[in-house]
């Protein structure tokens, strides 16, 4: 029963109804996140099954509705739940998750700065060798920055007494 497209479509409608006024945004983000992989699999299935004579609309509907349902559920969870608060039962894990997230955003910003700087200093298309050197320099700078941030974070956490008990406000 769980593998019937109609049941999954009803579940998808229920999830979108539960999303309230965020339903359009959730549907848009969910569809965007699955469209590439689903299109490739669906197109390949369509071609292979047409040639093999075993095409099934039911399978195509089943897999696409299921993937969209799961993606909508994930985005609804993200909209409704605060993952950092949800991890409050394990303070160390919550700190780890929050730090990893904030540092990821910082390092992503550094990578974007690198890409913008490389673009602004290049006339025309860069050679393959130069693009490799730029990518390697960006990778090394990110690791450098990460280790520097690690030392700063350790000092900040130590100065706030994090390591003496896990009830600090870091």
């Amino acid at each position, binding site marked *: 029963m769980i593998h019937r497209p109609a049941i999954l479509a009803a579940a998808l409608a229920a999830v979108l109804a539960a999303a309230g006024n965020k339903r359009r945004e959730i549907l848009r983000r969910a569809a965007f996140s699955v469209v590439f992989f689903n299109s490739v*699999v669906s197109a390949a299935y369509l071609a292979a099954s047409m040639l093999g004579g075993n095409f099934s609309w039911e*399978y195509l509907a089943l897999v696409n509705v299921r993937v969209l349902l799961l993606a909508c559920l994930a985005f609804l969870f993200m909209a409704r739940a605060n993952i950092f608060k949800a991890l409050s039962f394990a303070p160390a894990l919550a700190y780890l998750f929050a730090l*990893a997230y904030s540092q*990821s955003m910082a390092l*992503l910003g550094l990578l974007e700065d690198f890409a913008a700087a490389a673009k602004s200093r290049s006339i025309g298309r860069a050679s393959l060798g130069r693009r490799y050197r730029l990518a390697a320099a960006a*990778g090394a700078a990110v690791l450098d920055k990460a280790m520097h941030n*690690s030392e700063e974070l*350790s000092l900040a956490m*130590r100065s706030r007494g994090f390591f003496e008990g896990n009830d600090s406000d870091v």
Partner: protein
Amino acid sequence: MHIPDGFIAPQMYVPAYGLAGAMWALAARRLRESFDEDSIPKLAVLSAFCFAAMMLMIPLPGGSSAHASGLAVPAIVFGPWTAFVAVSLVLAMQALLFGNGGITTLPVNALALGLAGATVAWASYRALRNVNENAALFAAGWLSVNCPALILAIALGLQPAIASTADGKPLFFPFGLSVTLPAIMIPHALVGIGEGVLTILIYRAIEKRGWTAS
């Protein structure tokens, strides 16, 4: 690559959660033995590095590019267990905060990319570094892409065998191993060449700044 939700059957992802849970517990125990009080910030920034490294682009001929896996350098420098935990954290973050990858497929992705990819990169580097360090770094980069790709190709290719209707219609992923192995491995074998070259260049750059293999 990593597999999104909806293509892997519970017959595979439920046992995979069990196996990954055991591996995460083992990794946490090993990290507690070797890490000091700085372990949380170190692990957090290493996860952030893995996240950023996955965003690096491997330049391909003709001006195009592909996403790097960024696994080999952290595995070589910090060891496979640390890289496994960091990559698992990145995959969890991508699934729970960005909606990329999947929650049901998290253990399959973590075991393939984080555990197998990092371990094989670290082991191949250590096995070959005394023969030729550049070859060792290249092999680590190439294998860090292709070993996970092989595992994910097998995981996807087994779906028709483990989850089909009585009349043989697939319920999850429609293609067997005869399709998934060449479809996934041939492009990854080529992208792995770029990853290998990038691994050499990044490692040589960080070596100058005092970071070397663990």
